[in-house]
């Protein structure tokens, strides 16, 4: 498969990158490791006029201890980040989710920023142009209705970032730099809750930093997948316990991580937290494994994870 023709630019700083974006009148995409973007371009899901490579912008690649915060450059590679001592010492949930992300060869290319901004996925969407034309276009491609749930007017694609749930449990914030402003928001606020367009991003905005409160935490990450590597999560659970409060995030069963706070992770509290998530999620048959099964595993994964984390702390 070959991509459609595009121009390739390598700006040296964020301003230049944003300027290039405007030059191409929005028909440009940013490139980090490319492990999400390039497969989508090959499938013809993305046909940009220009690809703006962010890898040459050095400040975006670094990890910095800022005292109250750890600033993670979005271009930091998954493989490097999982070996970073700050991550290991402060954010065990993130360390575990980085380790669980695809496989090592992809971790060496993929970045944390690209991981957060990876597009939502569906077996009926991540297909070649031939396939999609045969089937008829779905909502996410600009069609009338969903192909995974015939007739539905909602998109059910799954947001499959392994690291977003972990970062949510750590109360991470992000910095976005766009043509007009630089804004900082909670990671959770990034999500639209709409699977066909999962991110609340303004045109041209670049993710320029991820900030995680520098507080010691205990935590972990569990991932449901068919094989021991490469596979995207079919369901994931992240948990961090910081300053006497626990946060649980459930991923890969909808357009965003579902985050619930709990004071003491008692048996009942876990049950209640899981109930909150179960009320919001509606997995459908758009990935491998039965959707009811994926839903049924939410309490199992969450319960096991939280118990393991709290046991370990004793």
């Amino acid at each position: 498969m070959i991509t459609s023709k595009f121009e390739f630019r390598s700006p040296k700083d964020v301003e230049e990158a944003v300027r290039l974006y405007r030059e191409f009148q929005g028909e440009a995409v940013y490139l980090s490791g490319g492990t999400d973007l390039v497969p989508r371009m090959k499938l013809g899901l993305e046909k940009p006029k220009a690809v703006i490579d962010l890898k040459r912008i050095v400040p975006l690649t670094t990890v910095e201890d800022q005292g109250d915060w750890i600033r993670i450059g979005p271009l930091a590679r998954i493989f490097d980040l999982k070996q970073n001592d700050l991550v290991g010492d402060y954010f065990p949930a993130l360390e575990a989710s980085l380790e669980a992300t695809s496989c090592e060869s992809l971790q060496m290319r993929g970045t944390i920023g690209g991981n957060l901004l990876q597009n939502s996925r569906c077996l009926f969407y991540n297909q070649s142009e031939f396939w999609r034309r045969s089937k008829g276009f779905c909502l996410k491609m600009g069609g009338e209705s969903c192909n995974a749930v015939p007739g539905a007017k909602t998109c059910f694609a799954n947001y499959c970032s392994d690291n977003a749930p972990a970062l949510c449990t750590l109360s991470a914030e992000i910095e976005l730099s766009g043509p007009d402003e630089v804004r900082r928001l909670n990671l959770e606020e990034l999500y639209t809750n709409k699977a066909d367009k999962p991110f609340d991003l303004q045109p041209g905005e670049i993710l320029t930093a991820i900030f995680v409160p520098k507080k010691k935490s205990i935590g972990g990450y569990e991932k449901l997948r068919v094989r021991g590597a490469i596979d995207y999560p079919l369901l994931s659970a992240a948990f961090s316990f910081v300053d006497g409060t626990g946060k649980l995030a459930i991923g890969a069963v909808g357009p965003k991580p579902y985050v619930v706070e709990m004071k003491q992770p008692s048996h009942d509290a876990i049950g209640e937290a899981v109930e909150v998530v179960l009320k919001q999620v509606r997995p459908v048959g758009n990935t491998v494994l039965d959707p009811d099964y994926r839903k049924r595993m939410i309490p199992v994964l969450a319960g096991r994870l939280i118990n393991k984390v709290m046991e370990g702390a004793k």
Partner: protein
Amino acid sequence: MDREYTIVGTRMTRTDSLAKVTGSASFTADLKLPRMLCAKVLRSPHPHAKILNIDTSRALRLPGVKAVVTAADAHGVKWGVFKYTQDHPMIAVDRVRYVGEDVAGVAAADEETALEALDLIQVDYEPLPAVFNPEDAMKKDAPLIHEEYANNINVHVHIEVGEVDEAFGQAHLVREDTFHAAGEAYSTLEPYATVASYANGYLDLWMPNAAPHVRAKALSNLLKMPLNKVRVRRINVGGHFGSRSEVSPGDLVTSLLSMKAGCPVKLVLTREENAACTRQVHDIQATIKTGVKKDGTITAKEFRVVYDGGAYSSTGPIAASIPYYVYEEAYRFPNVRYNGYRVITNKGIRGMYGAHGRAFLCGNEMQLDMIARELGMDPMEIRLKNGLKVGEETATKSVIISGGLEEPIRRAAEQANWTEKRAGLTEGEGIGMGCVAVMCGFPMGFRSGSACYVKLNDDGQATIVTGICDTGMGNESMAIQIASEVLGIPVEDISLVNADTVVTNLDPGAYSQAASFVGGNAVKRACEDAKRQILGFAATKMNHPAEDLDIRDRTIISKTDPSKSMPMRWIVREAFFQGKPIAATGAYMPKVDFQREWIKKPYGQMAGTFSFGCSVAEVTVDKETGQIRIPHFVAAHDCGNPINTMAVEGQIEGSVQQAGVAVLTEETRWTEGLLLNPDLLEYKVPLACDMPEIEPLIVCSNDPEGPFGAKEGGLTTRMNAYSAVVCAAHNALGVPLNEFPLTPDRVLKALDAAKGGDKS
């Protein structure tokens, strides 16, 4: 081993390994010929439709486009392995029957232009109702996909031996269960590709294939060209597993394009095309009824097996029979009725698979365990009791000349600590056993045999010329090793010329487990004849009786007086002097019943010999998540005698992955006629991290017919590994598992169903 060989039986690095691991081996897609064009294929977007019109004029006008072909350029000949199954035009004529079917081909100066040209071809379709599963397809009012197949039944294989109903009537215990397994993808690392080069009336072809002679014959028919003008040449093949056995639509399209353009043309399929538009594996449903005596002796078997055949026949009758045969070759049952239906649906084309028939084979083995449990027997005992022995006949009258099931069972059980492990299992743990026996070759008329030429060159090195084809399993290395053993010269002194239809002689190919047993035998015989000639000249020259001479390490040497020796090349040169250069031919035809036919007469000797095997898997099942792990796997395989021990072990290990672990993960998923996972991300081939610890055990039965006692190496494990795993899971869970693969959601469903009352 009880015999002394120099190179046979060693752990030799295969002759092809270095080139492959360093990336210097070239495959069809790597070929570059002067003036070569790039081909692309326009495919049907509909699962079933009439073609009303095809307009290629705009595509032809696009600069850079050199040729466009449609069915109008073909000759109206249809492909099918048998005369009665010729139903596949390879380029759609007036109807398309699956999404991805070849409709037109384009050859252009580059890939972009070829793709652009595809968009310019206008095809008018009239969609027809389609049917996607065999049970629906067999219904009265189902759309008929081919006029000639009533109820869409492509082939019906019926086997009947003994008094089946009476035997069931007298049985102490009868069980009937239905099992279903989703189809699989071959997932060869090399996507399909063809290079065709037509010049001066001759067509040269390269493509991943498992039998060049059979491929050339098929193409000569399809192209209406004399066979001597269609030449299939040798090329490395990146995996086969059954998928490269038959002529592929891409071969025809590429050939026609090259003939029309007058230039070499290369077609390389994408990963998606490879999955959706070349043959894949049958989805199978098997209903199995077994009757036994009180002591566990099987007295009757009845089968109804439905194979989802996709849109065309392909190997139809063979595919609808093989699972049954590899089962009857392992176990004794005097009364049997088999009804195999291969049914046409509007899904992609299907062929044979190395691990073909998992619903049937896993089903039989799991049911045997259920019966054993009801009788209070150990699963090993019931297998030993019913396993075939040397000298016995299978139900359809094939004699077993070596091996038998007992030794592989005993060896595997011993290595796996079967009895102690079974006694000490804790919650969620299970251990299971799977057995099978596999034919080495099957009747293919005069193409069942193989012939080899050998010539000795002036420095005492040899060239062997054989039709043996290597699709990645090491057949070339095997042929060289056999020649080296017989001729007494090292492997590096042997040049191999193989799998080239103009140069080499007929060979049954790399798909009926015949390469070592048949092809290897021909190589051995040719080299033995050459050796006889050499020793004849040597006897005169050395003035020593030929019977006391041998060749060792390039030297003619007396067996009784090692001081008497002479470099072999002197003898070879002497033969040249005398105008009688050393050249020999050897051939081997397996002793099979050539009257045997898959449908008309499914009785008689199926193959020259059979390989036996037993696998033992240990599993742990998480009852809350349904996830299964396989910590340990033992595979005992009677391959007669390994030509290359390491190569056989490699085949066994690959088989454990492709069948044993895959039965937890692999399935093709469909949305109507579209494959949902035509890739290697969502089609779950097990990874290194998913693999168990494997102990391959080679059992040597020293086959009386096989070259150095060899039979096939590897397929036996491929066809029993999944049974071992599902039997172990059944052992751990104690509930019937009827749906494969055993993904965690299916495991929990089975547990839920059992809670609802249906306990085994």
